[in-house]
């Protein structure tokens, strides 16, 4: 699903965020991307859904070279990839329900179906009682769950999650991981960036470790 070949990313001349990263995540796999802060986890995820372009190297997602796809095809890629952002990236002026339904809205899904599916996704993350709240009225953990619901609503082929349990208490974190497992069992490839070692150990899944922008183990 994800094939990275000698990928490097430099934001400035002095330091590189990623250097010579070669790794593969198979279709249907569930794996963790870990490493200390600043190791390049977030940067790698950004390269996968083409928020950033690598300075060198190639990345293939579902067989398509995302480093070379034309600008006009980027939305298409992003619609197939669900992303849970570290800072949630919720639309502040829209309700929880609207935030989640937005992904379907831009696809032209009829409004009734948007609402039905958004409700389902929010129910799955335990937020169906806050449909009409605005993001800033929610706690950090709740906002994170909205972001997760949004990432999952369109049943993406690939789910990228950047510290998805960082703001959650252990029980809720376990709930979310269970949710990811379920999504994975339905065929979605899942890549979770985290430095929560306990969570990784509990899951027993494959772990890719980055250190100072390089793959330390995989």
């Amino acid at each position, binding site marked *: 699903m994800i094939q990275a070949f000698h990928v490097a990313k430099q934001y400035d001349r002095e330091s590189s965020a990623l250097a010579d990263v070669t790794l593969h995540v198979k279709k249907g796999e569930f794996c963790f991307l870990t490493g200390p802060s600043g190791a390049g986890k977030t940067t790698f995820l950004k390269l996968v859904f083409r928020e950033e372009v690598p300075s060198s190297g190639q990345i293939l997602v579902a067989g398509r070279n995302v480093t070379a796809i034309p*600008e006009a095809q980027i939305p298409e890629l992003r619609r197939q990839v669900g992303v849970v952002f570290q800072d949630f*990236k919720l639309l502040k002026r829209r309700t929880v329900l609207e935030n989640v339904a937005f992904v379907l809205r831009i696809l032209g899904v009829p409004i009734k179906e948007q609402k039905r599916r958004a409700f389902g996704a929010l129910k799955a993350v335990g937020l169906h009682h806050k449909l009409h709240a605005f993001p800033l009225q929610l706690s950090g953990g709740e906002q994170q769950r909205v972001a997760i619901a949004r990432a999952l609503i369109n049943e993406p082929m690939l789910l990228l999650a950047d510290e998805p349990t960082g703001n959650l208490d252990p029980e809720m974190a376990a709930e979310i991981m269970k949710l990811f497992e379920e999504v994975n069992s339905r065929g979605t490839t899942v890549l979770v960036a985290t430095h929560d070692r306990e969570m990784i150990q509990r899951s027993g899944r494959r772990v890719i470790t980055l250190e100072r922008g390089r793959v330390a183990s995989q």
Partner: protein
Amino acid sequence: MAWLRALVYFVEEALLSLWRSRLVHALSVATIAVSLFVLGAFLTLAGNLDGVVERWTRQIQVVFYVEDAAPEEVLRSLEARLKAEPGVAEVDRVTRAQALERFRALFRELATLPEDLRENPFPGSLEVTLQPGAAAREDALRLVERYREAPGVEDVLFDLLWIERLSTAVRLVRGVGALLGGVLVLAGVFTISNVIRLTVYARQDELDIMRLVGATRAYIRGPFLVEGMLQGLLGGLVSLALLGLAFRFVTRESEAIAGLLGRPLAFLSAEAALVLVLGGAMLGLVGSLVSLGRSRL
């Protein structure tokens, strides 16, 4: 149906945005309205003058003023000879009394002037109307030449030169209007583009998120284009309303002008009004395209 839903979304978003910062938007609507008002006012003026020129050129007239003392037979023979000239459509005999009547009808405020003068100051005349057509001007000049010195003729009035001057003036009015309107229209586009740019700037986070969850460029830009277009459309409608009001005011104040023109003043044609309003919408669209072109969207 997906495109229809997208369109509904664009309009909803645009209306919401217009409402959220209604003061700023009122400013750009007003700018567009003023510029289109000026343009429309000049168009109306030029249109009316055009009508006059056209009417007068279609009916070229040469007026021969006759001597007060000219004997009746002389006038009759003059009239007969003029009627026989090629290219002449009609010859009207206007007596001194009739001329006085006309004056009184046209200038009601001055109706007592002849009494004050204690005599009728208006001469009688023969009004020759030429057959319309390309040759009319030549015919008129020939008549003037031939009968200027004829017995009984006191003076000749041939107003073609004046008409030609008037049509030059109309062209000038139209040119000035286009120039002034053009400058103002540019200002309007500039205002709209800046207002849209402010909106884009204020909502940059939101737009970034939209991009990240897979919204296409068109989908992100759509609401802004509609927003600009709505501002322009509103501006066009406001300008039309203002023009209508101004027109009513002017026509009420100047029945005399209408009398002189020989017909009531005409407002913009329905087509011109439509062009004005749709033109406003286009200006808004151009304004938002300009600002989106400058931004990262």
